[in-house]
């Protein structure tokens, strides 16, 4: 008796039990998954990882000094973030969570624009409307960052699905955390991507935590990758602190999409080395010695070792890179800090394409009224 005569037996999920790793402890690459990057590509990746970390540290410091209001960083997760973005094609799109500014910069977001967003000033392309780290950069195929967890997942699916209907080969890479796998949009996005065979790369950064909630409170499964099975999508686990491995699996996922095979769920195993954001104190809920094993697998360290053994990197180069980042950062901050806040009128623009009568009225009301005390310090 064929109980479900209508359902084709296609598209079996893979067994997602193994963790793909390329860069071994002795700094050699496993040929089975080696993405075969050339020297300049590897150096480029390394530079972006360092840049990301350097910016992270400097932005945290700015926040501690009260010069910006907030920062949510990517300490320890740089390989997953940068590697995945690197593996996408230029025409593909990125749907970020909130930790992926490094990917945006690599894809073309100018540093000044990013820093303006951190200050929410008049030059911020989103006009100080959102919190820091909530930037947008259409020109580099970078969608708008939203705070609600998970909402970008269905959107990424819709984006590439739209492209597919339009006959275009455009994939999207959607970043989200382990916590986001519990969200409603994860379920809907994965399911729609499965049913409509949409070329989406679902990149779950499993960094161990959703603020203070550990992964075993998100799911009873042993891995996040195996959740793919519920949607007829392959799931794969990758060492998220090994940038070669990340590039490799994401490229493979893009290729599957190209071939009309639909989406892939990638669980990048990494660790959130800092607090959730500058608002969070992780000492309240995790012991610092939990960090140790992960510090030993720091993604930057591992890549630097690889480069140093190949004599492609040294301390001098490192110093020069950091000095360059520092100088560019300071310059951008200086400009951003001098830039005034957005004008009052901008508060009423872009709600609709044209402000309707009620927003015109409200704008006029503000303009003719008194200013708030200590409005923008």
């Amino acid at each position, binding site marked *: 008796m064929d109980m479900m005569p209508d359902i084709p037996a296609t598209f079996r999920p893979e067994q997602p039990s193994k963790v793909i790793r390329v860069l071994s402890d002795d700094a050699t690459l496993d040929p089975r998954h080696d993405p075969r990057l050339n020297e300049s590509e590897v150096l480029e990746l390394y530079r972006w990882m360092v840049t990301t970390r350097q910016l992270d540290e400097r932005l945290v410091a700015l926040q501690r000094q009260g010069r910006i209001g907030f920062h949510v960083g990517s300490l320890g997760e740089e390989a997953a973030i940068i590697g995945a973005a690197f593996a996408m094609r230029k025409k593909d799109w990125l*749907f970020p969570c909130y930790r992926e500014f490094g990917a945006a910069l690599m894809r073309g977001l100018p540093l000044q624009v990013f820093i303006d967003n951190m200050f929410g000033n008049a030059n*911020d*392309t*989103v*006009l100080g*409307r*959102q919190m820091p780290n*909530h930037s*947008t*950069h*259409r020109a580099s195929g970078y*969608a*708008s960052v*939203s705070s*609600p967890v998970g*909402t970008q*997942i*269905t*959107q*990424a*699916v*819709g*984006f*590439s*699905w*739209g*492209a597919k*209907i*339009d006959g275009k080969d*455009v994939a999207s890479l959607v970043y989200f955390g382990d916590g986001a796998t519990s969200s*409603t*949009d994860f*379920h*809907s*996005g994965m*399911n*729609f991507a499965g*049913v*409509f065979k949409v070329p989406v790369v679902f990149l779950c950064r499993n960094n161990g935590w959703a603020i203070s909630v550990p992964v075993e409170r998100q799911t009873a499964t042993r891995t996040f990758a195996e959740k793919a099975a519920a949607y007829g999508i392959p799931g794969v686990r990758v060492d998220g602190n090994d940038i070669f491995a990340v590039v490799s699996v994401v490229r493979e996922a893009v290729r599957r999409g190209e071939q009309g095979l639909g989406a892939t769920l990638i669980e990048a195993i990494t660790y959130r080395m800092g607090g959730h954001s500058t608002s969070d104190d992780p000492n309240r809920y995790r012991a610092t010695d939990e960090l140790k094993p992960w510090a030993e697998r720091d993604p930057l360290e591992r890549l630097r070792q690889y480069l140093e053994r190949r004599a492609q990197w040294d301390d001098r180069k490192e110093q020069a890179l950091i000095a360059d980042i520092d100088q560019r950062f300071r310059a951008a901050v200086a400009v951003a800090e001098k830039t005034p806040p957005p004008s009052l009128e901008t508060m009423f*623009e*872009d*709600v*609709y*394409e044209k402000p*309707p*009568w*009620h927003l015109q009225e409200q704008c006029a009301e503000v303009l003719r009224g008194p200013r708030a005390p200590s409005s923008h310090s």
Partner: protein
Amino acid sequence: MPQMNMVQAINEALRSAMRKDKRVVVLGEDVGKVGGVFRVTAGLSEEFGEDRVVDTPLSENGIVGCAVGMALYGMVPIVEIQFADFIWPAYDQIVNELAKYRYRSGGEYPAKLVIRTPVGGGIKGGHYHSQHPEAAFIHVAGLKVVCPSNPYDAKGLLLASIQDPDPVLFFEPKRVYRAAKGEVPENDYLVPLESAKVVRPGRHVTVLAYGAMLYEALDAAAKAAEKGVEAEVIDLRTLWPVDIATIVTSVKHTGRLVVVHEAPRTCGFGAELVSLVVERCFYHLEAPPVRVTGFDTPFPYTLEMEYMPLSHRILPALLDCAKS
């Protein structure tokens, strides 16, 4: 001009928009082969194929979330939510994403789409096939909300909604889907958003209504006329941004206001209309504005006719208001 009902007029608008613009796609549950549970999308799947008229999995959250993504890509999705009562799983995507996408991206991403959904009672639908949830969307900055009452407006407003650069919630009064008939031009035409229509002029009291309740207001107005009270009945058509000029002109003329809607009274759209009028016409008002609305209970099944603000409840409100 052909006679049509609202279902047919909306179907025509969809068909025309899909013919003219390949970016237009229709997404929803049962919109494909069966053409929608109210048959509004009948025949579209045959003409435009399964890629553009998509039966989706049963997830309003997924439908709207994906539609937002499609809109970011540049498609023009038209979503059908089978009943407005089932829109709530998509509310997060509508409130937090769709409505704010243009603003939060500094204008880089308009995220333009249309969400069509049948609203209102009178079809023995009980709690979950009768809700009229406009207030929950009018309150959200960034959305436009439309509710036609007749086939001509339905076609013209839907075409205008599809062309409009902003996201539009398009509420279809299911009670009059087939009952409201009228002539509808075969060609495309637009009924501009933000334009209300004075459907019955009068000088004693202004009645604001929309959707299925327009007919109840007109019925009450006709009966009031027999008693010497001339009500001016305005079909709002676009609920937000509302055509404030037409409302203010009328109330300044009549000095009295009755607002009718099916949704529960408290924090309903009627409260906003009363406030807008009071703020603008205070010194013209000769009597307190009156709200004739659904009650602050879930929508009941057996007693639905007692729940709804039908003519029998509008008429006394209208007479009282005109005379007080």
